[in-house]
């Protein structure tokens, strides 16, 4: 083999390696894009809801209010009769069966929506006003094109009669699309059009807050002690090995720990963010301690020596000079640890966070769900409307994770000192 041939061979080897590298990067990018495209295309429609503009005659007699009409008396009034009477007027129906079909075009919350409208606009009493009522999930899915309409009637969720009304409404321009505020403000529901992530968002917030309060101070103290003060001997070596091992323990094991100790022995209430926060902080502790120690280690010894040489005590050296310099790394480590805790599902299932919770939790001891668990719960529902809700919740969760990771990167880039 001549010199040129050998050179060519070496160059070819490099070219091949570059090609493989490029191939794996592009494969990874394609996988991520396909995943995101799949989630976004399924989930983006969940951010709008279909409304039906309906003329409601606010006949005060039907509300059966005794005495003057005030905000309070309206809040206590039954709006069912008034709502049904006006809604049935959108299309003439022959019998009670058809009337039921007309009512089923709307979400079961129509009476409350009409009530809220009147309380907001009290001058409309004894007048007719057009109110945008939320449609049922069947109409919603039909309007968004997720239900095929050319199937025979017995295979459709929407009957011919209902389809006819829907087409009339579309012609009259009564069907509208609105930003789905329910998705953010409401708790879980069995009606997809009324289900929201408000409850699980609060649940996740409480969980992460408790996790932060518990794990951050403990992790920082532990890492400062181990890195700066502890003598190097067999015991500290043993502790260090164990911390590294604990960081690799599957999260479900911590769930079992929470179930066995917090719920069974200490009798903490089931399905609450308090228990979830404690369980997840056990899981996050080692995962925060490791980057904290690494960032303390990265502070050059010259800083410590300089402080000690001008007479600072060990305590002053560490807290006045070393810890502030290590803070960016410490914070970004903590945020990434918390981001992992936010996306955790398995341990929460064991401590009973997989529950149907309608009321939005107000304290960490109220039963609640969390975002990843909500994804799991909705993915099992039979109704078609939950498919888009599931994907939309994944989008929200991904959004939070991206924001948290971005903050971590930003903190590190902005405040980290480079030692040359």
């Amino acid at each position, binding site marked *: 083999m001549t010199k040129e041939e050998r050179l060519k061979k070496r160059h070819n080897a490099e070219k091949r390696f570059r090609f493989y590298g490029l191939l794996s990067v592009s494969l990874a990018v394609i996988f991520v894009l396909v995943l995101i495209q799949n989630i976004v295309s399924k989930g983006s429609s969940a951010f709008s809801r279909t409304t039906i503009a309906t003329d409601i005659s606010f006949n005060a007699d039907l509300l059966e209010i005794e005495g003057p009409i005030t905000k309070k008396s309206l809040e206590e009034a039954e709006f069912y009769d008034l709502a049904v009477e006006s809604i049935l007027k959108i299309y003439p129906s022959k019998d009670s069966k058809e009337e039921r079909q007309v009512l089923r075009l709307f979400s079961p919350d129509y009476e409350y929506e009409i009530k809220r409208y009147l309380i907001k606009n009290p001058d409309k009493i004894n007048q007719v006003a057009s109110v945008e009522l939320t449609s049922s999930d069947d109409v919603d899915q039909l309007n968004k094109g997720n239900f095929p309409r050319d199937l025979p009637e017995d295979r459709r969720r929407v009957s011919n009669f209902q389809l006819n009304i829907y087409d009339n409404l579309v012609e009259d321009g009564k069907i509208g699309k609105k930003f789905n505020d329910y998705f953010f403000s409401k708790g879980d529901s069995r009606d997809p059009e009324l289900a929201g992530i408000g409850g699980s968002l609060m649940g996740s917030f409480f969980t992460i807050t408790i996790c932060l309060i518990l794990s951050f101070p403990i992790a920082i103290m532990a890492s400062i002690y181990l890195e700066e003060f502890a003598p190097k001997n067999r015991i500290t070596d043993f502790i260090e090995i164990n911390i590294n091992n604990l960081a690799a323990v599957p999260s479900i094991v911590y769930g079992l720990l929470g179930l066995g100790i917090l719920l069974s022995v200490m009798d*903490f209430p089931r399905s609450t963010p308090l228990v979830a926060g404690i369980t997840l902080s056990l899981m996050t502790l080692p995962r925060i301690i490791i980057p904290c120690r690494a960032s303390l280690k990265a502070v050059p010894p010259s800083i410590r020596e300089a402080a000690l040489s001008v007479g600072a005590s060990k305590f002053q050296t560490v807290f006045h000079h070393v810890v502030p310099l290590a803070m960016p790394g410490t914070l970004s480590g903590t945020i990434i640890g918390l981001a992992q805790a936010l996306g955790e599902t398995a341990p929460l299932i064991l401590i009973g966070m997989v529950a149907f919770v309608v009321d939005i939790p107000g304290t960490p001891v109220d039963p609640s769900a969390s975002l990843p668990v909500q994804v799991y719960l909705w993915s099992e529902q039979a109704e078609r409307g939950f498919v888009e809700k599931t994907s939309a919740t994944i989008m929200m969760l991904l959004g939070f994770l991206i924001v948290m990771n971005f903050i971590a990167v930003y903190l590190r880039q902005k405040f980290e000192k480079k030692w040359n």
Partner: protein
Amino acid sequence: MKTFKNIIAILAILSFASYANARDQIKIVGSSTVYPYATVVAEQFGKKGSFKTPVIESTGTGGGMKLFCAGIGVNHPDITNASRAIKSKEKALCEKNGVKDIIEVVVGNDGITFSHSTKAPDANFTKEQLWRALAAKVDIDGKLVENPYKKWSDIDSSLPSKKIEILIAPPTSGTRDAWNSLVMVKGCTKGAKSLYEANGKKAKKECAKMREDGYAVEAGENDTLIVQKLAANPDAYGFFGYSYLLANKDKIKAAAVNGVKPSLEGIQDYSYPIARPLFFYAKKAHVGVVPGLKEFLAEFTSKKAMGSRGYLTDIGLVPLASDKYKITRTAAKDLVTIKLN
């Protein structure tokens, strides 16, 4: 550091203060089959405004019984849902832990459908054919052999000449339990049963064993996933509750079993051969302790919920026949308890 201390102190006080008080929210655990119905009732109950919305956790029938029978008091659930009746073992566990007065409520009936894609031609199977397609061992010419059937036409020449492909629920699921007792045991031939007994084995247990050679595929607890897989593959079959068929009838349809297709009426009078009752169990000792429990039982068993035009019927629950309904309504209203032994 001071703020940290304060926050921890506040949290601790908060948690123990509200924990010391009695729970003001009904807690329900149990079967994933009853879960969709119980959640709808809970939501309706909460909307009325007098009480908080109950919290429902889907743990499976067996897991629910374990939690339910663990004891009396606010730390234990008030109600457990079940897709089968309480077993004597579970009754014993309940009694051991002081859960003595249990109210049994029959919620309604549920049919298990054997479904496939709407793109496939209609099909009809007998229970024996279904057993032969799924069983681990079948009897051929008086001998028990490993299941040799690869195509439906191998079982019976009238069936289509398509590969057998069935998505099955995992052994932990209540639907699988019901399928085992209603199809696998009933469809098991006399010949196979006597052969098992001759070998000193329990026929019921052996008949229910499913093949593991790739023709019956475990698809996980997620019925929605099974529906998606069936829609994508016209040759595959799967079994799940009637409500999933109703919600997805643009994608899947049910095969007839013994010539009968699943329908509301057929499941109600059990003329559709794979139908079963659904239950929930409540603790009488918690009535008056947990606010709203009695009212919740009344709401669940009301005509508005469970009746033939009730809101549970809309999502696929098959209502009880009127004589059975009366029994269940009285049990819920007068808090009639069942015998534990």
